[in-house]
């Protein structure tokens, strides 16, 4: 090549990698070139391993789903490179970099000299080293080749009626892959290690909504699932999970993450940690070599999203072209939008902020909208939007600007339009200025004029407005506006309508409304309730969560999955926590009766685990005190082995049935009170209740079993059984009310079950029968109990629930090794420290 002395040679830039970063850096450099210099400042070459032009990798999902063609996602075609005088080496890969000679060696023997080298080598998909990972039909989701394989597999499977695909990884990429495969007719299952999809971008509530939305699009999710092996002979046949389940699959996609591709940089001797280490000008530790994109580690951070790539490329182009030699890349805020048709989902910034962060949560179940924004030091730092993500960019902008949002905080959650309309304006004044025909309540078509008229006509609180106009009586999303109208119209006369006392600070609703809503709207998980009833905290508190757990369990015994995380420690550990953090354990003794064998087993447990104290309880059971948490599973196992089950002495549940000896031994006893007590206990043990629940059966009116201070008491008399309810020996002593007298044991048992069920369904969590009866009135209870149909329906529902919950929690937990591990400390550093000290 002859040099023309009139045009001195231009500096040569070589870009390794023709992906999104490679294409973009070339474009940014060209954009900054001075046209007076013939349009170009540099001789640019680009090397790409894929045998095609540069395409938008993040649009592979729509291609897989058949919503876009490959041509539509090409960003820089061969023609584009040609037109701009960029030399391309597609289908080539780099064999080595000679930093001394400033040369790049390609696989085919070519060498390309450079003045500046830009590494844009991207990243590789992580492949889990599972057994069977090398079977055919196991693919990653990273490049056009993978998409091609997946499309072919789907097409092949569809001939045989669809086929099944499993995607490991419930992150952005995995979900998009699964959705694409579902669109192509496969039954797609996402297997995810943790129990929330996209947990890096979403909180639990949004994760659950996403799960639902995906299910509607044919993608099911298996959460909390650890993959163990890929099964199959030569071709994948399924995925085996750690718990033994096998999910059949003719295609398995691994989408568990990416890892910077650093090989060329490493072998060239550049500093590489997780990624290629660069400074704020994208320079590696060789002043002539730069790096941009996913292969980079900047200020300790590696990025897997597109926005940082653009920021990096702009900075590097500014530096290289001299447009701004001091340009600096300072890291990027991150935002994600899920590319699944019809699922509007946006996540930006630190939605799980850190110290001093506050959350504002908005839920509109009628529209399936959930928003959560995170504020720190008066600045917006994060946002999660589900169902309505149009304002995502606006929030992201606020996050990046980092300006004080103090002025717009009140309306921020309602989005850009509302906030800007109301900026600096008193929200009440804005509502006051509305014309009369403005629609306030969309559900019921009520105008502002109608509401104001009603208020002037005497409807001076929310309930009354609801009563006479229907405004805010349906989905409730206009409640705030109706309240503003009350304020504006009544002035000082308005007092915020509080209604019944809220359950806790996380909600405005009282217990009764929550219980009713759970049943009416068929809400079946805690996040569902929180979503539908607009909880203001992300996951409730220690007061509402146990209550919700109970309400759901009572309403849907067959369907509801108990949530141990929402249970008080005693119910989680099936033992009573004591003041020193040890536990006490009470085995069940039916009706207070025991045997030599049981006593011997209890004595053995006491010896074996050095139980410091055994005490007879007020309910005629034996309580073993001072047991260490880590010993609990073994203690239960031993008691179980001797035939004993948990006494539930720790639970909001049926505790004990206290008895006297009755007609069998006592000279006054009129009926077999011990036998009836045992039967009642066998009927009702294991049933969860709003609070602890105790029963007793006395064999005669002398009442040795103290049945008149129990929740349900029976006094046996010559002619039958007196049934008593609502007694309490607690802080406020309350004697029972007589419910009725029945003639037979069978009736006594049916009444007890019906009463228990009515209490279970009607009382508020932590409300014992005594205050409950005073609240609802004895007459209301009698009315239910004396109606034979009602009584049968109640006892029927009780038995239905018992079919599910009458299980011994010790037997459920003791033999399993996993919970046993959870009962022991995560780590014990004590001995280690002693060794160091020595």
């Amino acid at each position, binding site marked *: 090549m002859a040099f023309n002395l009139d045009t001195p040679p231009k500096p040569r830039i070589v870009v390794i990698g023709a992906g999104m970063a490679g294409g973009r850096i070339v474009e940014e450099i060209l954009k900054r070139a001075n046209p007076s210099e013939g349009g170009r400042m540099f001789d640019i070459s680009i090397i790409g391993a894929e045998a095609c032009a540069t395409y938008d990798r993040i649009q592979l999902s729509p291609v897989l789903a058949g919503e876009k063609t490959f041509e539509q996602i090409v960003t820089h075609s061969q023609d584009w490179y040609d037109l701009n005088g960029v030399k391309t080496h597609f289908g080539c890969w780099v064999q080595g970099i000679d930093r001394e000679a400033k040369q790049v060696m390609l696989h085919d023997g070519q060498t390309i000299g450079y003045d500046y080298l830009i590494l844009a080598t991207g990243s590789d998909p992580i492949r889990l080293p599972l057994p069977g990972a090398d079977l055919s039909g196991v693919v990653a989701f990273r490049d056009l080749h993978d998409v091609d394989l997946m499309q072919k597999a789907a097409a092949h499977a569809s001939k045989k009626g669809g086929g099944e695909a499993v995607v490991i990884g419930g992150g952005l990429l995995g979900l998009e892959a699964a959705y694409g495969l579902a669109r192509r007719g496969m039954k797609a299952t996402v297997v995810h290690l*943790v129990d929330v999809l996209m947990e890096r971008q979403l909180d639990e509530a949004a994760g659950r909504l996403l799960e639902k939305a995906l299910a509607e699009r044919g993608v099911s999710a298996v959460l909390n699932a650890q993959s163990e092996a890929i099964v199959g002979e030569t071709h994948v046949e399924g995925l085996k999970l750690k718990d033994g389940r096998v999910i059949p699959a003719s295609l398995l996609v691994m989408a568990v993450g990416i890892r910077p591709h650093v090989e060329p940089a490493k072998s060239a001797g550049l500093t590489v940690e997780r990624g290629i280490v660069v400074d704020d000008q994208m320079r590696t530790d060789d002043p002539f070599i730069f790096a941009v994109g996913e292969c980079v580690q900047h200020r300790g951070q590696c990025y897997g999203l597109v926005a940082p790539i653009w920021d990096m490329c702009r900075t590097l182009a500014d530096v290289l072209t001299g447009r701004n030699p001091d340009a600096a890349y300072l890291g990027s805020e991150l935002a994600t939008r899920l590319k699944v048709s019809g699922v509007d989902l946006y996540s930006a910034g630190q939605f799980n902020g850190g110290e001093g962060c506050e959350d504002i949560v908005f839920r509109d179940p009628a529209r399936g909208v959930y928003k959560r924004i995170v504020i720190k030091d008066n600045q917006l730092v994060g946002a999660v939007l589900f169902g309505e993500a149009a304002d995502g960019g606006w929030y992201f902008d606020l996050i990046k600007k980092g300006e004080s949002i103090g002025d717009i905080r009140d309306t921020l959650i309602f989005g850009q339009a509302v906030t800007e309309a109301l900026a600096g304006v008193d929200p009440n004044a804005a509502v006051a200025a509305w014309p009369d025909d403005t629609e306030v309540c969309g559900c019921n078509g009520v105008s502002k004029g109608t509401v104001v008229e009603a208020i002037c006509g005497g409807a001076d609180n929310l309930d009354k407005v609801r009563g006479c106009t229907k405004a805010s009586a349906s989905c409730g999303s206009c409640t705030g506006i109706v309240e503003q109208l009350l304020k504006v119209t009544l002035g000082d006369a308005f007092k915020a309508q509080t209604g019944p006392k809220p359950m806790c600070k996380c909600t405005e609703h009282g217990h009764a409304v929550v219980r009713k809503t759970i049943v009416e709207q068929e809400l079946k998980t805690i996040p569902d309730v929180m979503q539908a009833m607009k909880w203001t905290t992300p*996951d409730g508190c*220690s007061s509402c969560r146990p209550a919700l757990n109970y309400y759901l369990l009572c309403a849907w015994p067959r369907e509801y999955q108990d949530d141990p*995380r929402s249970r008080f420690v005693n119910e989680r*550990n099936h033992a009573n926590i004591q003041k020193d953090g040890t536990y006490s354990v009470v085995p069940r003794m039916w009706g207070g009766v025991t045997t030599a064998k049981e006593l011997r087993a209890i004595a053995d447990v006491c010896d074996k685990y050095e139980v410091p104290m055994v005490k007879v309880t007020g309910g005629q059971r034996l309580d073993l005190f001072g047991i260490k948490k880590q010993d609990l599973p073994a203690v239960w196992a031993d008691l179980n082995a001797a035939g004993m089950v948990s006494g539930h002495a720790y639970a909001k549940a049926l505790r004990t049935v206290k008895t006297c000896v009755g007609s069998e031994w006592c000279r006054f006893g009129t009926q077999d009170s011990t036998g009836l007590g045992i039967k009642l206990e066998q009927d009702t043990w294991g049933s969860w209740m709003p609070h602890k629940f105790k029963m007793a059966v006395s064999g005669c009116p002398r009442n040795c079993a103290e049945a008149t201070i129990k929740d349900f008491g029976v006094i046996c008399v010559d002619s039958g059984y007196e049934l008593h309810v609502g007694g309490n020996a607690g802080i406020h002593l309350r004697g029972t009310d007589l419910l009725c007298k029945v003639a037979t044991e069978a009736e006594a048992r049916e009444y007890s079950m019906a009463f228990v069920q009515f209490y279970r369904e009607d009382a508020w969590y932590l409300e014992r029968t005594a205050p409950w009866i005073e609240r609802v009135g004895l007459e209301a209870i009698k009315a239910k109990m004396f109606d034979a149909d009602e009584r049968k329906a109640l006892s029927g529902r009780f038995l239905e629930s018992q079919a599910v919950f009458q299980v011994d929690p010790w037997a459920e937990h003791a033999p399993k090794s996993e919970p046993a591990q959870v009962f022991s400390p995560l*780590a014990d550093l004590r001995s280690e420290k002693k060794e160091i000290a020595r």
Partner: protein
Amino acid sequence: MNASLALKWVDVGAAVDVPYQGARRVDTDLGAIAVFRTVDNEYYAVMDKCPHKGGPLSEGIVHGRHIACPLHNWSFSLQTGEAVGADAGKGCTPTVPLRIENARILLGLR
């Protein structure tokens, strides 16, 4: 001497071994440490002892970035260790530096 003041990062186990909205205990000669995982998959560590009556905080209910003591339901911020809500200002449990690296939990101990 200075070395003893520097943090020593100790691997105490796999991040997945702490249940969501739950906690695990780590025993040390200075007392037990409770390692928490929140609903948002954040991890925190505090001394496992309620300043009120010594309750094991690791057995409480995790809600948001808070823990409710199982003995008397005092609530504490997992970020600052300070009592919050009705009992704000009445006590504080020391926090322990924690970081997650390669899916392992590291505690910063002195």
